């Protein structure tokens, strides 16, 4: 249901920076931290190239691919949720956020299955430097997914009553920006850990 005045808000929204200034700063700081981690990973890879190339062969790239497709789809659904909220359609926004949350859950389940398979095969963070980085990077990313799911669940709870209001739209845009950042991280992590140097 469209709230009165929602289209005015949408028109105003289309002219300003999405979300708040703080979230753009927070995401950029997080980006820089991940860039440092990627730099350390590539440095260590150069030092122990044989170990890294051999260890990478034991990763399941289809599990990584599935997670990439799950996160891309959830990002797309969050875009639709933000658009619906801007138009004041709380019910639609809520539905989209529900789907995005379920996709986040699917990512977590797939990741836990992958961790379980690795540990069962004796591949733990203590196995070698490649696996130390693998668990470290993917677990930090996993925590970002969990945080995003909490924010999405909160917005879903508010969507029906507050969609179309400026405060809610800005809040949801912030959550959307964070969720897209989580997606961008996996876009970088997937080739870094699973694909580069594979062939």
């Amino acid at each position, binding site marked *: 249901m469209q709230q009165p005045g929602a289209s005015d808000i949408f028109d105003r929204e289309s002219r300003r920076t999405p979300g708040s200034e703080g979230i753009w700063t927070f995401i950029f700081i997080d980006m820089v931290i991940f860039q440092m981690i990627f730099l350390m990973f590539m440095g260590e890879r150069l030092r122990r190239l044989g170990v890294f190339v051999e260890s990478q062969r034991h990763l399941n790239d289809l599990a990584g691919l599935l997670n990439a497709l799950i996160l891309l789809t959830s990002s797309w659904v969050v875009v639709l949720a933000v658009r619906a909220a801007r138009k004041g359609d709380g019910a639609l926004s809520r539905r989209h956020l529900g789907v995005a949350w379920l996709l986040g859950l699917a990512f977590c389940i797939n990741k836990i299955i992958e961790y379980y398979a690795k540990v069962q095969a004796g591949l733990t963070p203590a196995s070698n430097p490649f696996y130390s980085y693998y668990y470290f990077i993917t677990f930090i990313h996993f925590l970002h997914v969990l945080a995003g799911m909490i924010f999405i669940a909160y917005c879903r709870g508010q969507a029906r009553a507050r969609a179309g209001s400026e405060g809610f739209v800005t809040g949801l845009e912030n959550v959307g920006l964070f969720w897209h950042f989580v997606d961008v991280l996996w*876009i970088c992590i997937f080739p870094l850990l699973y694909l*580069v140097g594979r062939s």
Partner: protein
Amino acid sequence: MIRLLSRPTIVWLLLCGLTILSVAVAEGRWLRGFSSIVVVLIAAAKSRLVIQHYMEATRAAKHWRFLYATWNFFVAATIIVGYAMGMRTL
């Protein structure tokens, strides 16, 4: 149909297609040593698509557009340069 093929949907289809292509390139042998570089370039293009179209960076302040694009460049450069240096030592 028009609603289904809105810009976010087209971007999503493109992103999924590029993701599958990157796995095919990594698994295939036809590009030999260059496949990893192509995979990283595909990832950089995907990252840019998400930043531009889903994060709506085109509407953000100029400094954010610059910083986010620069980060994307440095991540891709880090992986490509690291990989190329590894190839030389093999």
